[in-house]
């Protein structure tokens, strides 16, 4: 399965934009497995440095994770103040506390303009962006979280421990497929 649509300017990209390795994660801020994947991705970013660019797309399962969508919207609201990744990190690091009051605390902790942040949380365009991420996940064959794509191709094996990193090294992935 391939990523549909491919990474573009509408995505949040962390790391070297020209990197030869592109890792895309479809995740849910309230999913405990995604919480476990969070430090694994961090470690890969440290290890691979400029060779890696990382993209996170939202795939909230709202019926079993009722706070996941608002957490995702909070990251988009933070992005409007150029602090997407700061919010992404602080949310995953406090995954068991995602009620709105906590999100406001996190916004303060990363020095967001709170008035603007609160207003943006209600912006339906941001909810729509999160929904569009979900739809792209469905199109790309995402069926659980986290699901990873490496250079546009779905990665179907385990991601625990060093398995993702070892896969990238073993396959000498160095050419984008698109």
């Amino acid at each position, binding site marked *: *399965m391939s990523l549909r649509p491919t990474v573009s300017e509408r995505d949040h990209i962390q790391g070297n934009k020209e990197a030869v390795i592109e890792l895309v994660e479809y995740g*849910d801020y309230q*999913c*405990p*497995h995604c919480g476990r994947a969070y430090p694994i991705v961090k470690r890969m970013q440290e290890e691979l440095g400029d060779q890696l660019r990382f993209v996170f797309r939202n795939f909230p*399962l*709202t*019926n*079993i*994770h009722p706070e996941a969508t608002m957490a995702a919207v909070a990251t988009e609201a933070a992005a409007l103040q150029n602090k997407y990744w700061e919010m992404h990190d602080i949310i995953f690091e406090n995954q068991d506390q995602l009620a709105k009051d906590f999100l406001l605390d996190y916004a303060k902790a990363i020095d967001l303009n709170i008035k603007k942040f609160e207003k943006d949380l209600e912006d339906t365009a941001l909810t729509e962006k999160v929904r569009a991420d*979900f*739809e792209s996940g*469905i*199109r*790309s*064959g*995402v*069926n*659980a*979280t986290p*699901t990873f794509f490496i250079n546009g191709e779905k990665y179907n094996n385990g991601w625990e421990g060093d398995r993702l990193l070892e896969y990238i090294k073993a396959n000498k992935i160095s050419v984008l497929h698109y």
Partner: protein
Amino acid sequence: MLPIGIIAPDFELYSTPDQKLRLSDLRNKKVILAFYPADWSPVCGDQMALYNEMLQYFYKHNAVMIGISVDSKWSHLAFIQSHKFHFPLLSDFEPKGKVARSYEAYDEETGACERALYVIDERGIIRWNYLSPVGINPGADGILDALEEMDQVTTNLSI
């Protein structure tokens, strides 16, 4: 698996402890039949949980989702309540697996349904099918592609 183009075998199964659902009562809608091995799969990204998030996309195509396994109606009730499912799960319980067998989606060795998907059109004809390896969640992209293609064909015909 049954082939594409034939009439989907009719059936009537319990959808709640006291209500039955008959396939032929759903004419004029597309029906997605998802046979699956068992309630209570241990992962977040369970197949049925995924479909539960997809219902609005299915509705857009005039399609309803129905899950079928050999679990009892009481197991289904508890599973539906705990996962907040908004679509019916049918109990192919007595005689066990009869409907799954009629759709060639029954695993005699494990005594459970296979992970088989069918999309049935408004006239009750099978228009798409997919058999997934039992350990692999087939996702929803194939279903959506099938529904879109069916709508395109219908649109072209009506022109």
